[in-house]
């Protein structure tokens, strides 16, 4: 608690819950080697200086178009990659630079549900051995105890116990995803990264899986990082939402605020793409269509990453990269539109900070 209070980030204090996961300045670069000598000539900046907190028990949605670094970010947070720079704290413990061997005892605390349930299950293992693998690795249960636990987990995710002997190819997509979820739950984790868990599923199954995830969150007090490009689904499940563009978070806000009024021009464009069920509103809605393509993450533009496509681009955007700053309580945006006239705005900024603090105090009392 002391740590979080001392941490410089203001967003750490959006309520009484303490952050379970704190990510600061996370960078994940994949080196590019070219030429005859395979020299290191550049980096694909898949995740470039990303910071966020996930409070205990909440769901943070991470949205963005494909290729913007959402999945890489999720995997980097779990340290499935050796990150380039930055700090990741899980329950106050720094894991950013730990070796894979040192991470092993911490793995039970954090788990992952993968996008493609077909690919994430070993085709040669039975359901029982897939769900049991974490138990074999991290506990010293006897065979019978393990089987008991496997059955318990299968019950929890709604799989028939008799399926324990079957192989992944014998299941439907939704059932496979349930196996993946059961595996992630096996060790009672606190934090689960859901990497597009519904993207590969039938629409009719998506709701089932999402509801299952929500039920489990309620029962087990789980914390999710929910990565998705399905904006409606994120609206349904997430408490707060981070919008990513080209390796950076451009806006991080409570769900309702973001969906009601996105601030960042990219977030506006992205959310205008959400289908609207009411035809009247849909007809009235103005779809923002961005021009051009996403720049290569190996060679991002100077200044703001979005400056090449932004409908409201200003001269400053092409020079200075906007930092993610808090513009309203709990809302962070990385855009010069809100922090611009930066010199003159500096007077108002502390004011906001103060009001933020007083609001918190009010809440805490």
């Amino acid at each position, binding site marked *: 608690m002391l740590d979080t209070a001392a941490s410089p980030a203001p967003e750490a204090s959006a309520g009484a819950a303490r952050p379970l996961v704190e990510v600061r300045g996370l960078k994940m670069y994949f080196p590019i080697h070219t030429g005859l000598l395979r020299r290191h000539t550049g980096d694909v900046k898949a995740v470039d200086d990303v910071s966020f907190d996930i409070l205990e028990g909440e769901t943070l949605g991470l949205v963005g178009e494909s290729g913007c670094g959402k999945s890489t970010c999720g995997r980097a947070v779990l340290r499935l990659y050796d990150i380039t720079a930055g700090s990741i704290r899980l329950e106050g413990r720094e894991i950013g630079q730990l070796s894979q061997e040192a991470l092993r005892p911490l793995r039970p605390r954090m788990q992952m549900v993968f*996008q493609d349930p077909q690919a994430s299950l070993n085709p040669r293992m039975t359901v029982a051995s897939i769900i049991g693998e974490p138990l074999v690795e991290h506990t010293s249960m006897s065979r019978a105890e393990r089987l008991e636990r496997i059955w318990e987990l299968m019950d929890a995710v709604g799989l028939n116990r008799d399926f324990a002997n079957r192989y992944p190819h014998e299941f439907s997509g939704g059932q496979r995803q349930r196996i993946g979820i059961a595996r992630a739950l096996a060790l009672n984790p606190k934090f689960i990264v859901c990497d597009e868990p519904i993207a590969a599923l039938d629409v009719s199954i998506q709701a089932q899986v999402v509801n299952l995830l929500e039920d489990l969150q309620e029962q087990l007090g789980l914390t999710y990082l929910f990565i998705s490009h399905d904006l409606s689904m994120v609206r349904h499940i997430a408490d707060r939402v981070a919008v990513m563009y080209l390796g950076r978070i451009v806006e991080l806000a409570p769900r309702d605020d973001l969906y009601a009024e996105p601030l960042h021009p990219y977030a506006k464009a992205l959310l205008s793409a959400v289908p609207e069920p009411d035809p009247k509103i849909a007809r009235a809605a103005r779809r923002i269509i961005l021009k051009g393509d996403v720049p290569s993450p190996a060679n991002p533009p100077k200044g703001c990453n979005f400056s090449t496509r932004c409908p409201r681009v200003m001269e400053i955007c092409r020079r200075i990269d906007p930092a993610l700053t808090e513009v309203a309580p709990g809302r962070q945006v990385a855009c010069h539109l809100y922090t611009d006239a930066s010199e003159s705005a500096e007077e108002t900024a502390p004011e906001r900070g103060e009001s933020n603090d007083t609001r918190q105090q009010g809440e805490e009392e």
Partner: protein
Amino acid sequence: MTEPAAPSAETLAPELATRPPRSQWRDVWDQFKKHRGALVGAVIFVSIFAAVFVGPLFYPHDAQYVPTGRDFIRLRDMRPVYVLLWDPGAKADWSHPLGTDNIGRDALARMMMGGQVSLTVGLAAMALSLLLGTFIGVLAGYFRRLDGPLMRLTDLFLALPLLPLLLVAVLLFREPLKAAFGVEGGIFVLIVTLVGITSWMQTARIVRGDVLALKEREFVLAARSIGTPSRRIVLRHILPNVLSPIMVSATLGIATAIITESALSFLGFGFPPDFPTWGRLLNDSVDRMTLYPERVLWPGLAISITVLAVNYIGDGLRDALDPRIRGR
């Protein structure tokens, strides 16, 4: 999934729910039995194996006995008994069903003794090359840092002229090994080792390719996210999935080993001349093939049938070990 005529669903359910997982090997065996080719192959292979190892105990003639004096003239160059069918005047007798060779040794006895050597050499050399090839292939495929050095090593071995290398190695190591393991034992160890370490390259390359593709699959990432160490990821997730190509190269490897051994024996660098192997029998008889076709036919047939049987067994095993095929 063979339940006896189903009672009502309610009475069945609790019993099912508490049933522990079946052993995977039972499933494998069940599927293997369904593969007719594999079953026939297995039966043939086992019979050849039994005939070769158990047969000499019941067969009266010694494979290395050379008759002398008048017997030599009487017993040499006998034809198999079936020649009597179309040539009643042929020199054939039931006491030597497959005839004798040009110095009067019994052909069937030599076939059996040769089979012992050829089968052991084939299996042992195949096992060695498979072990080496899989080991190097998995290391090269899974650990990026080892990929370059190990694959260059593989290329180096592939580029070596095999036969001259074998000959030099035999010349260099024959005497010390003879001293250590006895005449036949020394040559056996030498040949198995030589064939093994000169034939692992194909397996290594195939396995490496498969491992490279497999390690990018999400289930390997999932295992990493669980905290499974690399060693167990390889054993639990990678190896079972590269089993098919390993099986195929294994079955082909037996054939290669038998044939390489015969080539070595032919050149006089394998087992001693009076020591029969299938390859040697074949090679010894080539120059008189027109007069005595049976001397080429039988060893050749034995090699082919063994290889074919092993191939079918491998085929069946591969299918049986793959749960996606097993269900059908």
